[in-house]
């Protein structure tokens, strides 16, 4: 190229005018704290969930008294230094009951999330891999999903004695078809992927394909779905208890406290109010966590923001 007589040097060439920056530089945040900064919903949701877990674990040490201890002389006291959240119509301390109620809600929420995910995952995998079973299983799932899940749980609870275990069972039965459907969808779309085809063509056995290719890819949507199920299960438990078809009244759960406060709510709203606040915050925390995870785990959704 350089056939001109004068060799170009820094001194004699025309220099391009540098272009200005029209946008401020983007701050890059890395590491664990960078992740938290970039995902405020996960941060807020996770810290609130952890707080609730701590409250549930350490309820006996948080200045509570026996949540079932009756004190008929001290009925329906307004919130005060003695009863931080007031007392209910049997003189029980609402503060203690609400704190212990965290245990029931979290137990139900987490148990249902785990059970529904495991059952749904198994059924979804079977349905996605075994053509013969698919039609039958999915028709049954469709049928189950046609029954509004709270109604299904109510119907189940009406036939059993109220216990936390039965509540978990009822809500799990109402919720797992959704997981099964999700997993089946993921499996079917993955089966179309060239690398799965290649693995099948190469003679890889089905269990190996499931373990190596399918399971890792279902994990992200499954986790997100599990958080949503956890949130809706906590609401479902409260609804069941509230209408008298859930946790036995002897156990302080948020739904039970509200059910007991219901008769008096026009004059003593705080009995309903405090468990309502706790329930809402806990469900909100889990939902925020779910939204944050979805945005962080689903690159297609994340790209939009």
């Amino acid at each position, binding site marked *: 190229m*350089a056939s001109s007589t004068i060799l*170009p040097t*820094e001194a004699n060439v025309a*220099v391009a005018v540098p272009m200005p920056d029209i946008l401020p*530089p*983007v701050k*890059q945040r890395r590491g664990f704290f960078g992740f938290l900064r970039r995902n405020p919903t996960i941060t807020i949701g996770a810290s609130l969930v952890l707080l609730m877990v701590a409250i549930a674990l350490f309820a006996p040490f948080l200045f509570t008294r026996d949540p079932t201890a009756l004190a008929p002389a001290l009925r329906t006291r307004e919130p005060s230094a003695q009863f931080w959240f007031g007392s209910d119509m049997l003189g029980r301390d609402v503060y203690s009951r609400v704190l212990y109620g965290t245990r029931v809600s979290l137990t139900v929420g987490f148990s249902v999330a785990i059970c529904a995910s495991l059952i749904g995952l198994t059924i979804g995998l079977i349905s996605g891999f075994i053509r013969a079973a698919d039609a039958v299983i999915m028709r049954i799932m469709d049928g189950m999903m046609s029954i509004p899940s709270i109604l299904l749980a109510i119907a189940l609870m009406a036939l059993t004695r109220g216990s936390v275990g039965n509540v978990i069972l009822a809500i799990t039965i109402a919720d797992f078809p959704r997981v099964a459907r999700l997993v089946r969808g993921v499996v079917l779309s993955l089966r179309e992927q060239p690398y799965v085809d290649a693995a099948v063509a190469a003679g890889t056995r089905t269990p190996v394909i499931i373990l190596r290719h399918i399971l890792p890819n279902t994990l992200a949507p499954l986790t997100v779905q599990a958080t949503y199920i956890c949130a809706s299960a906590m609401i479902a438990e409260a609804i069941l208890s509230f209408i008298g078809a859930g946790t036995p009244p002897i156990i302080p759960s948020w739904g039970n406290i509200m059910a007991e406060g219901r008769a008096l709510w026009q004059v003593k709203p705080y009995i309903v109010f405090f468990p309502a606040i706790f329930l809402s915050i806990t469900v909100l925390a889990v939902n925020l966590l779910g939204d944050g995870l979805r945005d962080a785990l689903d690159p297609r959704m994340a790209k939009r923001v």
Partner: protein
Amino acid sequence: MPEPLLVVENLQTHFRTPDGVNRAVDGISFHVDAGETIAVVGESGCGKSVTAMSMLRLIPEPPGKIAGSIRFQGRDLLTMTDREMRAIRGNDISMIFQEPMTSLNPVLNVGRQIGETLRLHQGLSARDAEAKAVEMLTLVGIPAPGRRVREYPHQLSGGMRQRVMIAIALACNPKLLIADEPTTALDVTIQAQILDLMRDLKHRVGAAIVLITHDLGVVAEVAERVIVMYAGKKVEEAPVGQLFRNPRHPYTQGLLGSVPKLGSSLTGTETRLAEIPGLVPSLKSKIPGCVFASRCTYATDLCRKVAPALEEKAPHHVAACHYAIREAVAA
């Protein structure tokens, strides 16, 4: 000399992304005269489509940002209000896109989509707009226009859809037509038909055309002047014949080298299809010297250090390369 139809000066279009600012277009200047056809060529990702979109301010802001000036008939498009801009879009300046399959709205019928432009800019009634739409369909060579006008895009073939796009673009007799890869997605035979149609209509309507393409065959066929873009910058500009005969910038030479010559295998002059080694550099970090230095076989330390300015290497022929031959010196 009167001012050209369109004058673009120091156009910059940057985007905010999570991992840095993408300088998709970084300081492009060019002009288009009335009735002229110019081509903007370059590899995918060189910023040619973003340039086209910026000219109609179709870049979403944020995350994008446009700076510089785009003067159309003496008025700067970048300082116009949204309302003024809307009055220009589809009326004075219109655009055809690369993907005819996805560029038409699937839930509105063809007549409605053509008529919409007419109703917006010429205030036609729904009935008049449909009548005019039938006329436009006839003009772009769609058989049975009276029936087609009521059909939906999925009922049409790719070539027909691109004809509909052209009908939409030309409905209001624009002064400037921006065509972003109008034939890339089509079969070769259809490509030729669409190019013929564009050329024919250009004469009838008298619009200037800015043709964005990576297809040098198309450039040779229709353009009068060519702008070569690389990594968001203009690296060379010349009248079409001159560019093909005597490319100055190593990047342009590489581009021309990578076009197979028809019949070269018969004449025995078959050469290996040249390719440009390497990849387009990331536009998210600032490049100190020449943008092409990382892939240029002639690059020296000077190139990597000092960015070359665009210089007139021959009459009407500019290139941004320290080592490109200057006519005055070489001749």
